[in-house]
């Protein structure tokens, strides 16, 4: 009887998220505190990288979420285009600034890490470059949302931009690979490749990643709720003016 589409009802969505948000927020705080404290203070220094290795606990989770936020926006945009659920469009809108900040954190921590390790803040390496391009895509997406006054038009246009942008972002990723071979190491966490990273680092990293995922979910839920309420408020105001 009950399906996931029930939550496309804004009222139901707000009721449910209001109920689970406090617990989710506490869980996020615990995971982040645990992961970051464990990672920063309770792991040994790397024998070659020294203590700089510990920025990995911010760098990798934020990079993970920078990409997954865009994926989530893509899915939400598709749902909006196919099923016209307003909550979905608002969730995509709410996720964009969070994704932008995650991309920025990944770029900044990467620069701070790259300075001592590679001897440079920035290199036109494929991974770095594609993150910069992703950053630009986020900027364009947010700017388009902000520029259009009609809510439904904005939702439609940004959804299509998100679809087209995804294709081009993917294309750019491979084009950049072709264009320059990089400094950046390969994937550190891979199911197949086995022991790239020691368990003493891996476990706190997993906790941090869980913390960032939770953080993203909490922020998006809060922001979506805010968008819904803001829209409701505008409607009420408009109705009041009509009545008066």
């Amino acid at each position: 009887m009950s399906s996931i589409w029930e939550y496309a009802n804004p009222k139901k969505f707000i009721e449910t998220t209001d109920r689970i948000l406090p617990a989710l927020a506490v869980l996020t705080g615990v995971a982040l505190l645990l992961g970051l404290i464990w990672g920063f203070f309770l792991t040994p220094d790397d024998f070659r990288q020294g203590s700089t290795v510990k920025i990995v606990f911010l760098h990798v989770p934020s990079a993970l979420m920078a990409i997954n936020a865009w994926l989530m926006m893509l899915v939400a945009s598709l749902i909006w285009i196919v099923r016209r659920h307003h909550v979905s469009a608002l969730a995509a809108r709410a996720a964009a600034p969070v994704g932008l900040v995650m991309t920025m954190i990944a770029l900044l921590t990467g620069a701070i890490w790259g300075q001592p390790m590679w001897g440079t803040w920035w290199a036109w390496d494929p991974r770095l470059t594609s993150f910069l391009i992703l950053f630009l895509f986020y900027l364009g997406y947010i700017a388009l949302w902000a520029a259009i006054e009609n809510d439904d038009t904005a939702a439609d246009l940004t959804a299509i931009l998100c679809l087209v942008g995804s294709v081009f972002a993917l294309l750019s990723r491979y084009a950049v690979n072709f264009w320059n071979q990089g400094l950046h190491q390969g994937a550190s966490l891979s199911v197949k490749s086995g022991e790239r990273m020691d368990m003493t680092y891996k476990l706190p990293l997993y906790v941090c990643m869980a913390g960032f995922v939770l953080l993203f979910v909490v922020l998006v839920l809060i922001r979506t709720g805010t968008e819904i309420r803001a829209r409701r408020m505008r409607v009420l105001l408009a109705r009041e003016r009509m009545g008066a």
Partner: protein
Amino acid sequence: MRALLIRDIRLAVRAGGGFGLGLSFFLIVVVLVPFGVGPQNALLARIAPGILWLGALLACLLSLDRIFALDWEDGSLDLLATSPLPMEGIVSIKALAHWLTTGLPLVLAAPLFGVLLNLPEAGYKWLILSLLLGTPALSVIGAFGAALTVGLKRGGLLLSLLVLPLYVPTLIFGAEVARRGAEGLQVATPLLMLAGITCGAMALLPFASAAVLRVNLR
């Protein structure tokens, strides 16, 4: 459709200098570069393919908002939308007209500007070929961006912000073809990739642009 194409080309050539504007901009970019980086011929020869591609891309960007904006303002876009022509066809024709009035002149002028930048002799053939293959993609992608921003006041800046990231793959492969050609290397791979991007963009993007225009005309 042919009538629409001829009308668009006529408007671009006759009305208000939109036609020569891209070319002049391209020329100015090419003239300014040596002032910026210094007059050493060896250095100019090395960066010439990239600069020429970048200049062509920016010149193309400059005239994008004209694709739909004027027709939007005087209402002829609404008339076109209610005509029996499919929206996808209208978008494609408008992109084609933009390419014929902006992209093609840029392609033809590029070798001339290559002389100014001391482009190596081997590079001319590949520069022309890569621009010929790549600029249609710039027009088609640009038409998508123009369709997105058509209803907005001061949409020009937003248009650049939206379109420039989409230009990345085209620029990378196009400039790579020109660079490799100039240095006498193998060009087949980037050339095929460039052609693939152009064909893919021409085949699929008109559907997205048409969907966007329908939303904007609602």
